């Protein structure tokens, strides 16, 4: 479970951090004597994902889970730390991510209405990664043959997500939300990636459609041995898809554990609170204690453990000293109370 390299690990993340400058414009800072302001969106995040498995990151809005996703695929450059993909530093020489790595990881976004260009036919949407990465270049470049090969490949990709090859001639508006998300998946699969970063891929979908998409993602994982980073705020979905789960709170991972262990024996008070907060259809009679308080403003996070104002087990040490993510009985937990054996 440690961050050391092993043969099975496909993705290793070490000390990853991203800070955003949210200062007021220069003139306001000077005139109103405002200091510069930074948000530590992701702070010291480390994990490894083994080949063919799924790591899920859960947390509430603003906890930095989507920022981690974007850092991994290279949409943001990390402030600190590094991403190692299959033994190669993903930052590459001079900070430019090598094409060979970019091709091997793809992303699926949350909103299928915003992530597909409405003016493009599905054919072009799905074929774009093929063209971008020059995957048609090894073929004869003389027009028609390359085109028909690309069309055939697009047809294959659409079929693999349960759409018809003929759908390639349609525009995104002709599809429902679930179908659009399948198009996104087909596009992500175009370069035959090994690693897919899925940022809330089913949050915008109805439950029955969500089930269709989750089933497809599982089937594809089995067929192609895909590795997933799955971002979600829905713990029931996470429990269904993941092998390992990382719980994030205000930019940090507070608990990282195997799925069975995390759900059977949550250690961190925040994880317990989250698990307690899910309304569950099969346990309607269960008494639960609704979570107390709200997520603090990330601009001025509490000192010490950032969860301490909401934590029923917080003591003086929690208010001043930030807990490190420590091994505890197979899980990794960042909590003084767990470390001291108080809970």
């Amino acid at each position: 479970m440690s961050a050391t390299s092993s043969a099975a690990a496909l993705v290793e993340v070490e000390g990853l951090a991203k800070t955003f400058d949210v200062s007021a414009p220069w003139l306001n800072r000077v005139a109103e004597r405002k200091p510069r302001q930074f948000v530590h969106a992701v702070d010291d995040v480390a994990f490894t994902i083994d080949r063919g498995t799924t790591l899920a990151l859960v947390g509430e809005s603003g906890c930095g889970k989507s920022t981690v996703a974007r850092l991994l695929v290279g949409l943001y450059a990390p402030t600190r730390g590094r991403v190692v993909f299959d033994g190669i530093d993903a930052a590459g020489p001079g900070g430019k991510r090598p094409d060979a790595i970019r091709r091997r990881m793809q992303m699926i976004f949350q909103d299928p209405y915003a992530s597909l260009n409405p003016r493009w036919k599905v054919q072009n949407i799905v074929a774009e990664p093929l063209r971008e990465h020059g995957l048609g270049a090894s073929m004869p470049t003389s027009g028609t043959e390359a085109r028909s090969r690309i069309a055939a490949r697009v047809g294959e990709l659409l079929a693999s997500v349960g759409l018809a090859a003929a759908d390639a001639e349609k525009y995104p508006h002709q599809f429902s939300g679930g179908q659009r998300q399948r198009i996104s998946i087909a596009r992500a699969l175009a370069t035959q990636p090994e690693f897919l970063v899925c940022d809330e891929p089913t949050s915008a979908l109805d439950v029955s459609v969500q089930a269709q998409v989750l089933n497809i993602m599982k089937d594809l994982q089995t067929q192609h041995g895909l590795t997933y980073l799955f971002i979600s705020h829905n713990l029931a979905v996470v429990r269904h898809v993941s092998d390992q789960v990382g719980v994030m709170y205000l930019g940090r991972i507070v608990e990282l554990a195997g799925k069975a262990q995390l759900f059977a024996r949550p250690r961190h008070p925040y994880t317990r609170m989250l698990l307690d907060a899910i309304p569950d259809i099969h346990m309607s009679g269960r008494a639960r204690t609704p979570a107390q308080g709200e997520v603090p403003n990330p601009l001025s996070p509490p000192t010490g453990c950032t969860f301490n104002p909401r934590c029923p087990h917080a003591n003086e040490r929690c208010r001043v000293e930030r807990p490190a993510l420590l091994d505890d009985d197979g899980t990794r937990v960042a909590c003084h109370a767990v470390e001291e054996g108080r809970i």
Partner: protein
Amino acid sequence: MPGPLLEVKNLRVEFAGRRGTLTALDDISFEIAPGEILGVVGESGAGKSLTGAAIIGLLDPPGRVVGGEIRFDGRRIDNLPYEEMRRVRGRSIGAIFQDPLTSLDPLYTVGRQLVETIRTHLPLSAADARRRAVQLLQETGIPAAEERLEQYPHQFSGGMRQRVVIALALAGEPKLIVADEPTTALDVSIQAQIIALLRRLCKDHGAAVMLITHDMGVIAETCDRVAVMYAGRIVEVGPVAAVIHSPAHPYTVGLMGSIPAMDEDRARLLQIDGAMPRLNAIPAGCAFNPRCPRAFAPCTQRRPDLMAAGSTRAACWLHAPAMQVAA
């Protein structure tokens, strides 16, 4: 035994457009007893929000009620003139919408909005209304309510805003609250707080609730009875436990099976293939028949009405007495 608080009978809502008329709600009938919490669940486009909008008289044109009736406390409200309906809304029927930011006016303080609402509906002096506003905010669990009255909505977090909206909905002391996806825009830990609050306050104030949501978990925790909607119709209605544990309509069965559960492991989720039909292409017979794994002859021909099915009522020919199917 007192009669139902809200009685909806054969409600039909249509949208007239250039390319013909679309029937968005078709033959909706249900009742809500005083103090009862009825859940209305369904996927996007099933017509659940529209049902709520029809009840509070806020259907957006060209949508209009073309058939059936809505009775509140025995009085028909679906054909009231605008001004009269305006007095019913807020005073007798409160409303809570999904997005707390758009339900509050960003240019007025929270206190001013509360006082205005209270004085519109109750004969109170400005000072009394203010005291009542503080009391309402305190009831919804907003700390330092006195000071918060002077603040604007943007100074509140999402969860706190939704508490203000609940306070506003309760301000006129309505007997019924229509809550349309009140927790969908909120984080899970806040969701639980808001649901608990809604349930407690409605009990304290004796208000009935029509809770519209797509989240079966919220329904399970909160409601007494639930109505499941599909393509503009109610396909199953019954006590929450019965609908969840022994659903009678194949659509409800599929819906339940497609929800990932916290207490069991399944390699695959049950999936209903296809998607809900569009309003301009609702299949003949039972609207669910093309997706239904148990469809048989009568399903494509005649539309089933709600009929007794175990401990719930379902609109499905599987539950019809044999002769009725043959007829």
